């Protein structure tokens, strides 16, 4: 049938829908793994899930078939509730169709499954976006390389002075619940002011600024490393006796 360029024909004519879903799947996977921006990763995640939805939808489709609702000749409307001649109402249950009749309908199951998968996808995306928001508030960045740098610094700090770091992190939570609410917004405000000013937020949009702030972040990282090693002496003393 396809003597010349049979692979080409198979991919682009016979199985175009599968080809498209594989391409979309790979685009999504690539974005999730290789993109630097967290939001772009999530966009990749959406593409990935959508590709699977397209796959399911395309396996449920039949050429020339109609939606899976009874055709009039199989189970005409009104026979569920047909009134008999003596006035009583006869209730009929839906009919079970013969195999020959069923071929005229598409398979509803894959589409129904995908309703559930869409709901799951929406929930995942919502959760992931809220986690993203929290990361942005806490670390002031949505770029993965900067985030990793900050996390490494934080981990290094906590492993050298575990005692101090831990107790500082946990202590706000020990306060009363009412205080915790305001405390959180307070610390959020503080972090906001700590953040290097305007460039950071436009960075993800404007690419050519990227070269500029990197020495700045390095400088900041030095500062950040110096802070805990230089300053800790003061708060450390009283804390060390406390837990024992």
């Amino acid at each position, binding site marked *: 049938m396809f003597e010349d360029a049979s692979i080409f024909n198979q991919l682009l004519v016979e199985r175009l829908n599968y080809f498209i879903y594989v391409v979309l799947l790979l685009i999504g996977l690539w974005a999730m793994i290789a993109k630097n921006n967290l939001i772009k990763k999530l966009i990749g*995640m959406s593409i990935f899930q959508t590709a699977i939805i397209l796959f399911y939808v395309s396996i449920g489709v039949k050429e020339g078939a109609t939606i899976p609702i009874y055709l009039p000749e199989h189970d005409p409307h009104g026979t569920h509730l047909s009134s008999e001649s003596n006035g009583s109402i006869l209730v009929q249950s839906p009919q079970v169709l013969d195999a020959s009749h069923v071929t005229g309908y598409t398979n509803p199951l894959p589409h129904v499954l995908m309703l559930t998968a869409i709901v799951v996808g929406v*929930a995942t995306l919502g959760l992931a976006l809220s*986690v993203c928001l929290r990361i942005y508030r806490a*670390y002031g960045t949505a770029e993965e390389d900067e985030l990793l740098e900050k996390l490494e610094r934080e981990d290094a700090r906590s492993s050298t002075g*575990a005692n101090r770091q*831990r107790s500082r992190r*946990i202590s706000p*939570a020990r306060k009363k619940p009412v205080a915790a609410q305001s405390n959180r917004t307070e610390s959020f405000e503080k972090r906001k002011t700590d953040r290097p000013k305007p460039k950071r937020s436009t960075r993800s949009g404007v690419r050519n600024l990227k070269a500029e702030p990197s020495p700045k972040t390095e400088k900041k990282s030095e500062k950040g490393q110096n802070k805990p090693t230089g300053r800790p002496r003061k708060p450390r003393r009283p804390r060390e006796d406390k837990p024992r």
Partner: protein
Amino acid sequence: MNDHIVWIVLFPLFGAVVCALAGAWSKKICYPVSVLSMIASVWASVRTLIQAIESPAHEVSYILGGWTLDLFPRGVGIEFRADLLGALITLVVTGVGLIVTLYSKVPVQRETPGKEPLYYGLFLLQIAGLAGIALTGDAFNLYVLIEVAALTGYGLIALGSNRAAAATFNYIILGTIGASLYLLGVGYLYLKTGTLNMVGIREVIESQNMYDSPAMQVAFVLVLLGILIKMAFFPFHAWLPNAYCHAPTTSSCLLAPLVTKVMIYVMIRMVLTVFGVEFSFESTCWTEVLPWLVVLAIVCAAVMALAQREIKKMLAYLIVAEVGYMVGGVWIYNYYGLIGSIFHVISDACMTLCLFLGAGIILEKCRTTHFDGLRGLFARMPLTMIGFFVGGFSIIGLPPTCGFFSKWYLITGGMVSERWEYMVTLMFSTMVMVVLFFRLIERIHLAVDESGKNLGKGHGDLGLTNEQTRFDEAPLSMLIPLLIAASIVIIVGVYNQEVVDQIEVFLRAYDLPTGVSYK
């Protein structure tokens, strides 16, 4: 009277709704509601296990919505089906859930103040999802329940520090890839077999002789790959250590023992029930490749655990190593290896629970789980430390604990199938775990300074002041669950034969080799 099996999932589900709604009215009722719903759920799973043992076919089945299973590709509706394996795992899930719920009173109030209703809501939904995974007999329903468990798990972890939120993001990305690959695999299964019921799929594969079908091979690879990502098998483990290390105490206590183990259960379920022994082991090349990957996984995870200086992170890497044990036990394709794998799922859940509960208490009392903060802890909290070390001894595999017996079966499996590489790796990682835990014991019992020098003069003198060794035990609501978990580790070890009997009854239905199986 077959509906106990549904109540296992429904109790925590309703409990979650009640917690989330009524919590707005009073925060105090969340804890009792959760405990009550978990007790009810444990009762229902015990009843289900007894029913499964007593019934002649050794399984309990319940079709939701009153559909029928009579048509040929079995199953139109969703089936809840508990054979002996499913019932045992369900009991483990609900039992661990109950113990962690009891334990949760103090840490939840401290770590997520003001959010208790929502926290308990997520917590119970997580248990409902995990129990559902163990019970469902429908491949797509399994995907939905995996996502229910995963989404609530992301929430439970992200409630911790800011660092936890950053770790959660990785977890979300990798978890979604895993679950989506599984979903894709199920799509291929449905395409080829026309049913989603697990037993139905296997019936079709066997009756239509689909062993060489390329689409089935693709489905198998996708499903397995998805599950391996979800269970944090070595190259895909990157999400696990940080997520479990920085999560709130109660979350890590619930997730660490259960999530990876339940995913291993899913793998066993897929291999035995859905694809069938002949397809999974004979017509694919996984039995040749995977045991070597397992070797790599165990060695790397053990070495990385050795490099950690923080208890929770060390335990997280131990979980990765244990996942390697169990995956290896399945893929050496041997009767004894599978017994070991299933028994290790049960015993590993118990001992990981024990260790994480202990680590949670240390964090609660000392505000750190770093090795340097542990000096002389045994004098302060002897009962906690005994509970913690029962878990540790079980991970090492000392005889009265259940870890010994499961490892015994795994090693036996490695020997009779002549997978020497697997057996040697098990021995090696046992050595590493001895080092890990005796290093901890040294720090906890003696006073060792940060360079490892002993500060005490010996003869009972630890070099600590009286103030530092004053008896200061954890609150009872945390201590009692830990001691219960420790005694379960020992009880399961002592009565291991009863558990293994049930596993053997389950495995006898499948045609597994008891000798050398590959060449």
